[in-house]
């Protein structure tokens, strides 16, 4: 299983990766939506994407829209990773095709719950 992490904070990328790799999920980090798309284009679809909301160049919402516009990526699950300040826009992200959202700060349990909910991992 491969996961794409799209977040401009190195802290969040490392933290997410450390939790996911613990589950045997292979992770790739990118720093904004555009880099995320480029990365997918090069190495094929991922099973899972964890996407920050607020990033330079291309934010999370535009990333979700771009991914969902391409049916080649239909199987990829997208989890929006947001803070409460982003929450008001969450509906837009879910409308655009994000599968779930995860509120910062989260812990391992919170992350695993969400991943189970979208069927990314079994229990």
């Amino acid at each position: 299983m491969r996961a794409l992490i799209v977040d401009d904070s190195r802290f969040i990328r490392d933290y997410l990766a450390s939790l996911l790799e613990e589950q045997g999920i292979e992770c790739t980090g990118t720093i904004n939506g555009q880099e995320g798309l480029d990365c997918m284009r090069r190495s094929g679809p991922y099973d899972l994407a964890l996407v920050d909301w607020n990033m330079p160049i291309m934010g999370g919402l535009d990333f979700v829209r771009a991914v969902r516009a391409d049916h080649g990526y239909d199987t990829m699950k997208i989890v929006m990773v947001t803070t409460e300040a982003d929450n008001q826009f969450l509906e837009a992200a879910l409308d655009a095709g994000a599968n779930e959202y995860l509120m910062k700060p989260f812990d391992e349990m919170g992350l695993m719950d969400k991943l189970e909910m979208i069927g990314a991992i079994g229990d």
Partner: protein
Amino acid sequence: MQASRVILLKFLIIFPDNLSVDDLTREFLIESQEGLDRMERCLTELEDRPDDRELIADIFRSVHTIKGTTGFLGFVRLEKLAHAGENLLGLLRDGRLRATQEIISGLLALLDGLRSILDSIESDGNEGGGGDDAMIERLVVLQQTEPSNTSVQASPPQKRKKSTRKSRAKQPPAQAAETTAALAVLQSLETTIDLPANGAQDSASGGTAARSATADSTLRVDIDLLNRMMNLVGELVLTRNQILQATATDAGFALLSRRLDMVTADLRESVMKARMQPVSHVFAKFPRMVRDLSQMLNKRVVLEMEGQETELDKGLLEAIKDPLTHSVRNAIDHGIEMPEVREQSGKSPEGTLRLRAYQEGSHVLIEVSDDGGGMPVERIRDKAIERKLISREKAAQLSERELMQLIFLPGFSTAEAITNVSGRGVGMDVVRTNVEKIGGKVEIESRPGKGTTLRLRIPLTLAIIPALIVRCKSNSSSGCLQQSFALPQGALHELVHLSADEASTAIEWIENAALYRLRGKLLPLVFLDSLLGHGEGTPAHAGRSGETYIAVLNADGRHYGLVVDGLADPEEIVVKPLSSVLKQIALFSGATVLGNGEMALILDPGAIAARAGIRLAEETEDVEERRELTTGTSDEYLLIEVGVEQAALPLSDVLRIERLPRSKMERLRGRPVLRFEGTLLPVEDSAGLANGDVDGEMTVVVCRDGERHVGIAVTQVLDVAAGSTLAEAGTEAFAAGVTLLKERVTGVVNLARVPALPPMELLPSQFPEQEFAEAWQ
């Protein structure tokens, strides 16, 4: 605090083994500090472009990221403060508020607040006490600001500055924070290398990394690790040097060792490059500082920065941070005038402060220039006298350039002169000391009414320097030993070789001072052996035997020749610190191991000059003319040129040779006079040299004529030569006698014929002393 600890513990348990809370906290600190640095830059730019959405979005993101990550680590105070800032920034981002001056000031205060909490976390892991209620309240109030309407509700600017300063003062130096943080992260290098570097994804992320040049194509490297690498490279350089010497005779090995030589050189260069950072790291904080200072002083200052991409060794960059900061403060506080004053003198009310960095050979030059009033030379002189740093007599002899150098004397700036801005107990002497400590130099240039430029000359790196190996004989009881010393190439101008024959005649002695005439200019000499206590006392050297080399040095504005017994090859030496015992001798800047395995001390040209009492050169080109010619033998003459004629002055009567701007010459009843040591000096100017270009310079030889002093204006000083007086020959009006100099008949100037001054009461009054309101520190 208790609560956050609990959360921390909880995380400790669930974190995978390879990523501890400490690692994450460090990561968080580094990222947050970077974010705040970016925020600071953007905020200063926002002042000029308050409607720039990109800037606002950038600032928003910085605070947003801190808020988003701080929750993971349970830093509640930080989260609350960042949250309040985020709300305000959100309104700005959405265009519901306009970035007014007050809002920007508020955000700057927020920045300071966030920084101080981060600093506290960094130092002891806690957010520190103290409430942010006032700050949060202020941010909330700012949210209610009407768009494009400046609210008076918000805290008055006066108060802002105070709180800003306070919180800034509390901060430990930011650089220390960065270093510790960077260091910490590197201890867990494997785990913190960014994700794309993880094996399988290499190909996928290759392009990604290349594109995001700033974010991910760089790797943080621990300074300690780099230092260790540098040391190892240093050792390699030494080993290479030894191999080069050992294999010089073997043809097969020679090829091999040449390769080793090349590889070592390349490796050394690469490691050194890894230590380089752009000066923008230091420059970045100045826009904010200039803004705060100029507001506080009610001055208007535009900051221009140039050459920010110029790179410098990380360690050196840290070392110049403080001197540079101080210089910028000085320029704003003392250099740039109040807007009204500027307008009165026909300048734009807005002063310009220019920071410029550029590389010149093996040095990086950093200039801080202002277009202010220039340095008040007279006041500097008066202050130096008042502080008893220099006697009134001595001060009168100093040129403007030398007077400016007085600001670098320890004790020049004192408590009374400390203002809010410049005064932090740091004077220009500390700036100079700090810069010289890293092998750099400070130069100052100032023109009245036009401004001042302070130039820091910093070597590119310190760890490995090119040096010339010199040898010094020591006649110890155990026989004649040769000791090697390393002379840094940076200070070395040229080498002069004297054969055994020449050595005994070419070095001239005036009392105890040895001089060498280098292309017609007198160069004071320092003997390395007597300096080290090997020689038997100076004049004995008059009868030196054997070959002699003079290394012509220029250090700390002092120009002199160091006499050594022999030279070896130039080598790249690795500078090792000295033990404190050797440091106390204060002639050496370090030690090194030479190619032949021999230990060598590294000579400190500046310290040697100071020890030997070499004067500061007035102009680098005109050193020799300032040399005081004390009583010489009566048979020696100073050969001068006046107009087209040559003439001679008895050396015993020559007090000094003064090179001065022509504007210093004054006229009294049509006769040229010169102010000299508090008296007026009649000047004999038979060739009308004082009538030339007023902006030019001229040379006056000051002579003793019985009880009085007189000046002789000369076109140039040619030489000092021994001559024998010819009897009964003084027929020429100009000459007191005729002498045979260098086998040429030359007239001797009759000093007694220089007309006396008119009666005292007719003397023009001295210039009124100017008020001394502020001082250069």
